[in-house]
């Protein structure tokens, strides 16, 4: 029997909404860093399990609702 493939999660940001409030980086220090201008740098790769936990926290913490999680179908 094939194992059910895990969902792959990617953190995304709508940069036109983000106001650089930086709440996200505070609750997800290992996943989100800030650039020199105070705006979050979001990992582009599929999240590891630990990062995913943090990412979900960041999504909830963002006062602007600029962050969201995209789920990608497992391929291969």
């Amino acid at each position, binding site marked *: 029997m094939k194992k059910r493939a895990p969902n792959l999660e990617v953190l*995304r940001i*709508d*940069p*036109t*909404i*983000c*106001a*650089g409030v930086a709440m996200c980086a505070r609750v997800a220090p290992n996943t989100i860093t800030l*650039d*020199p*201008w*105070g*705006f979050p*740098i979001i990992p*582009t790769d599929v999240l590891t399990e630990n990062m995913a936990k943090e990412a979900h926290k960041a999504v909830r913490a963002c006062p602007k609702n600029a962050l969201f999680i*995209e789920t990608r179908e497992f391929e291969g």
Partner: protein
Amino acid sequence: MKIFSQDIVFGSANHELSLGETRENFSTHSKLNIVTTFGSNAQAEEFLTLLETSGLTGHGGAHFPVARKIRSAMQSPAGGTVVANAAEGEPGSAKDAALWQFRPHLVIDGLLIVAQLIQAKRLVIWIHNDERASHRSIVEAIKERELAGSPIHVEILTMPPRYISGENSSVIAGVRGEAIAPRYRLDKARPWGLGNPSILSHNSETLARIAMVRKYGVEAARSHLLTLLGLDRRTVTEAASSDTYGQVLSKTSGNPPTLFGGYGATWMPWDSIKNLQCDPATLRATGLSFGAGIIGVLPVGSCPIVETGRVLTWMAGQSARQCGPCFRGLADIAQRWNDFATKAISADDYHTMLIRIGLIPGRGGCAHPDGTIRLARSALTLFSDEVEKHLEGKCEYEHSLDFLPVPLEVATS
């Protein structure tokens, strides 16, 4: 099949001075007999297949296949909007101005054809409010049609002359009556504005080509307008896909650095451009972009580092100020670049600038910051000797000659 019979020359600072062609009026244009209606669905389908075969892609810079874009909009219910995008964002470009000032009816025919195909009920011409000569010509064209007994109902929407107001998602937002700024989308491959009903925006040259294909067939899609930058003029010239840049700019000698595409594009050595064909598809296959069709051969006396700094400053000021990495990041890079261009900066400061340049791509809501950074990076690669000299405080240009057209900053916000 060319649109123009000769080159059209514009002044460098504004669109007022123009030499060359005479403007078509409706009665001269009518002699072409371009049919903008379709007798049946089968005829419409036949024309779309022709457009597909012609390989016509959008001339605004993104080069999306035109037939596919129209077909997607045809999936939506009738009653949508077609926009002729005449908001030429690139200060160097004058091809849309050339079309609207000399062949307005051809562009309007293209607009009518697309409107027929998607059964749109609203027609819009979207233009910067400082494009006075083009605006005048459009108003006149509409009046001529009315007097000739073939009135059309077109809205002319004007907006401040910002680079980003011609960007596709900005246009659609503006036509909907929302703030004119780029919108963020997840799926960048999908044309913006599809829906219920669709708002379809096409670049002015694209519309003119659609009308040309309707009249002359697929050959009409194999010419492209270029704007050649000079110190005091911009020349709009029409090149066939089979022409090389060397043939079009036959007077270019030596191997001068050349701005290729537009302000969100790249610096390239003339030697690597001259044998390329003026064809968006061929260029794309080699990883290059035709962009807005701007070619700027750097004149003797202009420092390429200083010129790049002038453009970076302008591009930074053109940010729609929505995304931090764009409006904060680009402003920071532009300032650092100008310091680097005009005074000796330390190797550390230079290094910081490089790191920061690397932090911007991919992080804006639209392609504006990526294009700006592309230009900066291509300058650093191509002008490595000049970079060295600048770092040593030994720029060989006492006073660099201003070359690339950079409009005075319009007041923002």
